[in-house]
């Protein structure tokens, strides 16, 4: 009995935690001022939000369903692999958009550093010493980019 009660309490707590963090993450998404800041919000939804729900599920099924499940761990694994990449790509897309849309130099305002030595630039913008100006459009569909 007590095991069940404790388990239920744990489950309930995890559920509340999960729901709460998912909400906070989305709140951040809605509230924070720029995309780069907003990007931090959903990380919570991904990690603790979904994670807590998954753990709650892992605990719940042996207690109430009579079965062990471990799918949740797999979901977590997938999310943990993919979420950083998603964030990375979204950030890159955003930076690229700022960089190539004149007037919207928001990331400069946030003080983005140079990519340090050797005249290297960030990959999204390309090489500083490259012959290509990232603002110019390349010629031809799928043509060779100098940076490639």
């Amino acid at each position, binding site marked *: 009995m007590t095991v069940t009660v404790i388990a239920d309490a744990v489950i309930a707590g995890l559920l509340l935690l999960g729901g709460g*963090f998912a909400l*906070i993450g989305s*709140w*951040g998404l809605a*509230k*924070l*001022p*720029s995309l*780069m*800041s907003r*990007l*931090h*919000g959903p*990380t*919570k939804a*991904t*990690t*603790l939000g979904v994670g807590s729900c998954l753990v709650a599920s892992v605990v719940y099924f042996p207690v109430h369903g009579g*079965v*062990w*499940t*471990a*799918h949740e*761990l*797999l979901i977590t*694994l997938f999310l*943990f*692999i993919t*979420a*950083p*990449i998603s*964030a*990375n790509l979204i*950030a*890159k897309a955003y*930076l690229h958009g700022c960089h190539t849309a004149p007037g919207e130099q928001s990331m400069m305002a*946030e*003080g*983005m*550093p*140079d*990519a*340090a*030595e*050797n005249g*290297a*630039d*960030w*990959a*999204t913008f*390309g*090489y500083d010493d490259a012959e290509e100006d990232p603002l110019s459009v390349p010629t031809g569909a799928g043509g060779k980019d100098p*940076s490639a």
Partner: protein
Amino acid sequence: MKRLLPHPGLTAMLLLIWMLMLNSFSMGGLLLGAFFAVLIPVYTAAFWPDRPAMRWELPLLRFVLLVIRDIIVANFHVARLILFRRNRDLRPGWLAIPLELHSAEAITLLAGTISLTPGTVSVDISTDGRHLLVHALDVADVNAEIAHIKARYERRLLEIFR
């Protein structure tokens, strides 16, 4: 052996995943899973050339546990930031982290770790592969933060990816 088991670690991981998916243990399931776990790496080997050497044992496990701990802690920290800090009081900042890690895999793992811990997001890598660009939601001292990340994560990863 190398051709049959190109990625032993991957094979083990796949088998584990298989058993997790099956959700019940049976000898038949295990054998079938083992079969697939051997087969798939053979097929996909071509997609993963030049794998860096990696230590799969304790350091990795320790690293994972550390990251999970950090994730939980950072979550509460960032939740506070989001809920109670006004937007204009936030101190977002860019970190250009100089890298000692060599391999793409290691750097990706580092970047992933940084992203998974709330408050920081890995954004880009420099064209020479020597710097990682990270954005932080609220950072008081950029250099301290860089040093923190390098000490906490990159150092451990350097142990794993020798």
